[in-house]
């Protein structure tokens, strides 16, 4: 029941925020903040109840009996980590929009909360129809966020985002239906239940095609080369809060889908496909790091680094051993915070000086020292400094991947070096060098306010915590991951034997 409340609260809060605009234009943001805070508190009550490998809370009710579809939500350690991240970044996003969004604020917070509701649904749904339902539900409000409050080229970016994710989503829908149909043929009843569908058996050729449907949908969201091109556009045009949600949470739904659905449902095909997926991951890491270095637009740069970092997640997932998976999950969490923070900084800069062009910037250290320190912290986090969360994630992912594929791991490890190059280059370009106020309007250039420091501080604490004491996060996801690993062990062995 608690899971329904989590989602329903966000939906209801969204409607309430929209309606409250008539009363007072400042009311929507307070209502939105209160809603997400309440949601976070409810989620925290789930912590510590039950073993992390088990379902901590679940709910199942018949929904569309004609197709055996049920309203089935459940949370285990992995889901819990991710919905906590969702609520946390939701609060951060509301904070970043607090002053920035003044026009039509009611509708903005409505969309923000509905996106969050869709994401929480994605992380908790265990009926594949319901999963797909939430998967699509989170797109429309995100479309509106980009299309209404975005920047100069928002129509193009919003449209591209929507079409990429929706079309690949339909491929996944076909795969889900094939899966359900095979279950119907083999078991005699319609079902979209995750646990039922785990037992479906295929011929290897069919399994590969069906798996690809899932993989393409998740790889688009992740995103991975060669279907990543929507992301830089979406990010550079979205308002800051939109970027935070997009980079911090929405990308993680793709990774979550790979871990929860794509590999466990089709273990044999996934193992067979793993070398290709890992190659794509290595290409994403290196290619996008290189492309990031070539950007002038600071938001596009951060967007490309996101693709590069998410490559480590793909790499870890398809290495499919405990360390690599732990690394992938850790990277998801740490990147969620660091990318969100960097987008907030870029958004904050744009809000102050109305440009995202890095060649125009320079010498900001003297003008906005607090902002410079914060930016340095998160850049260093993103490049994988030991002691911060990203390092743990990427290190574990590489460690695990090394056992699966030595050469790709070696190549991917160069991504860490490239990351240092572009991260420090940004700092150099923006905060050091010559200050030249003729290229932009610096009348609003002010340092971070107290409220902003609060948000960045919270995210810093999160990253340090992840870096210094990762065990508290690893413990939560360990049960889930080892359960998934043991369930797919047979298939992994079989594929390994064929390969030898």
């Amino acid at each position, binding site marked *: 029941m608690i899971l329904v409340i989590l989602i329903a609260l966000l939906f209801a809060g969204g409607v309430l925020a929209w309606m409250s605009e008539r009363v007072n234009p400042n009311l929507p943001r307070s209502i939105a903040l209160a809603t997400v805070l309440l949601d976070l508190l409810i989620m925290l009550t789930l912590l510590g109840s039950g073993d992390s490998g088990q379902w901590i809370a679940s709910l199942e009710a018949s929904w569309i009996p*004609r*197709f055996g579809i049920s309203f089935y939500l459940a949370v285990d350690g992995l889901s819990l980590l991710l919905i906590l991240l969702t609520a946390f970044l939701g609060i951060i996003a509301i904070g970043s929009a607090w002053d920035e969004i003044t026009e039509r604020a009611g509708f903005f917070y409505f969309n923000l909360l509905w996106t969050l509701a869709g994401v929480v649904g994605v992380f908790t749904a265990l009926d594949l129809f319901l999963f797909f339902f939430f998967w*699509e539900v989170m797109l429309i409000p995100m479309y509106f966020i980009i299309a209404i409050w975005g920047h100069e080229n928002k129509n193009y970016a919003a449209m591209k985002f*929507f*079409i990429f994710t*929706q079309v690949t989503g*339909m491929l996944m829908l*076909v795969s889900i239906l094939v899966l359900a149909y095979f279950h119907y043929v083999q078991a005699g009843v319609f079902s979209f239940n995750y646990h039922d569908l785990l037992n479906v058996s295929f011929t290897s050729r069919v399994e590969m095609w069906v798996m690809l449907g899932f993989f393409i949908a998740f790889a688009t969201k992740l995103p991975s080369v060669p279907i990543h091109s929507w992301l830089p556009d979406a990010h550079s045009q979205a308002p800051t809060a939109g970027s935070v949600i997009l980079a911090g949470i929405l990308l993680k739904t793709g990774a979550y889908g790979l871990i929860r659905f794509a590999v466990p449902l089709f273990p044999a095909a996934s193992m067979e496909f793993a070398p290709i997926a890992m190659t794509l991951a290595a290409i994403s890491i290196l290619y996008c790091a290189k492309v990031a270095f070539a950007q002038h637009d600071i938001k596009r740069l951060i967007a490309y680094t996101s693709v590069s970092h998410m490559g480590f997640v793909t790499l870890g997932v398809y290495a499919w051993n405990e360390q690599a998976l732990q690394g992938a999950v850790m990277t998801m969490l740490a990147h969620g915070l660091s990318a969100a923070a960097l987008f907030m900084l870029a958004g904050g800069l744009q809000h102050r000086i109305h440009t995202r062009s890095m060649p125009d910037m320079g010498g900001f250290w003297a003008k906005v020292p607090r902002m410079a320190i914060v930016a340095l912290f998160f850049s260093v986090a993103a490049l994988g400094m030991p002691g911060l969360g990203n390092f743990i994630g990427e290190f574990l992912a590489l460690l695990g991947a090394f056992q699966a594929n030595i050469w790709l791991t070696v190549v991917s490890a160069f991504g860490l070096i490239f990351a240092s190059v572009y991260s420090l280059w940004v700092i150099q370009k923006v905060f050091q060098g010559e200050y030249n106020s003729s290229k932009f309007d610096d009348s609003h250039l002010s340092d971070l306010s107290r409220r902003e420091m609060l948000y960045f501080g919270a995210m810093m604490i999160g990253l340090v915590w992840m870096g210094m004491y990762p065990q508290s996060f690893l413990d939560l996801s360990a049960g889930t991951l080892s359960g998934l690993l043991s369930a797919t062990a047979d298939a992994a062995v079989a594929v390994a034997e064929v390969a030898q």
Partner: protein
Amino acid sequence: MTMTLSDLLPLMPLLLVTGTAVLAMIVVGIQRHYTLTVVVTITGLLIATIVAAMMMSFTNQQVTPLLVIDQYSLFFTVITCASAMFIAILSYPYLQNLQDQREEYYLLLGVATIGAVVMVSSNHFVSTILGLETLSMSLYGMVAYPVHVKDSAKFPLEASVKYLVLSAAASGFMLFGMALVYAQTGTLAFSSVVELVNGETAGLGAGFSIVALLMIIAGMAFKLSLAPFHMWTPDVYEGSPIPATTYLATIGKAGMFVVLLRFIEASDALEFEGVVLVLSLLAAASILAGNLLALLQENIKRILAYSSIAHMGYVLIAIIASFYVEGSISIEAVTFYLLAYMIMSLGAFGVASVISSSESERDHIDDYTGLFWRSPWLALVFTGMLLSLAGIPLTVGFIGKFYLFFAGVEAALWVLLAALIIGSGIGLYYYLRIVYRMVLKADDATTLTSDGAASLSAYGVLAVLFVLLLILGVYPAPVMNLIEVISATI
């Protein structure tokens, strides 16, 4: 053959609709009173809807060889009468300021509905043609209705003549095909043409049957505006007054589709590979042509016209699937999708109708700029309808598309499914284009809504459709069960 009272009882909805048209005519004859005529029409259609809905649970019989009144036909009778009622309500404010006689429009609407009810109940070529021509004849009138009005911005006469000429040609094709089938089977009732070919009574041979079937399908494809028989659709849609367009796009399509479904099922036409191939080509061509051509349009009516071409292509996939799939799932898919299509199209055209009137049609895409901030509720409804047409969850269109995908997957129609995915992807672009226009900042602050009292009922219709759209999108189980039951009888 004699008619008894027990034969008349199942015909109640049809008789009620007929009675409505007659009564409206008498009322107009006594005194021309616009509102009274509308009220009579709406009330009559409402009663027919309710009666048909009540009869669904216990009526299942063939009334004369011409009409079959089973649950399936009653289901579509309900939909037809309800839609006709909605259109009548939407027409009321639209035609209010027409500088001409306005009452006869509702007679035409009533008579057209008689034709549509006959069509959904028909399993005989004679009743098909009777229903079809009754419907079409009235539609010619409805399309050309504002022809005497000087300020009428559009070209109703051109639309009407275009529709008349092409429609007559299509009817000719269909009649020729029917004659050929008759030559084969010796009956005008829908019946299998296959056994005659394989068994001893060879008739005139399989090739002959295929030609006959293809001629009928070509005629029907014209009425359904499936590519490549779709050329008339955008022009006629654009030239007609919006309520007439709505009628054409909803009831005209659904009625014909029910006939096509019954005919395909009864004639076993899909036993012939050639027919399957032709239908598949029609479906793929409609999906691609409809969606691609819609990209180029600047006129809402033309966009919706092309999108309706695509949607008819989508439904055709389920009809083709019915041959490969055991059980009735693909017939359920057709039924549910048609229901969904009716709701979305009525809603989308309804919004256009509410902000337009017979003097000024607001059907250019620029007319909708900033609608979200000028008339939020109207824009919300329109957005819902467009997203539903695009097949996004929370709306009935998603469940409909889910049904189609399911039927397609079970039948393993991979090529057509690929067309469906590509088509839907393209479709997103032009639906979102309209949505994007609506959320843009408005250039001028003028509200588009017409005067309150008259359009209040039209807002009511839109609200009902919007609620239906959401309820069926979130909790479709009851309607699905109903459709499962009624589809088993086909």
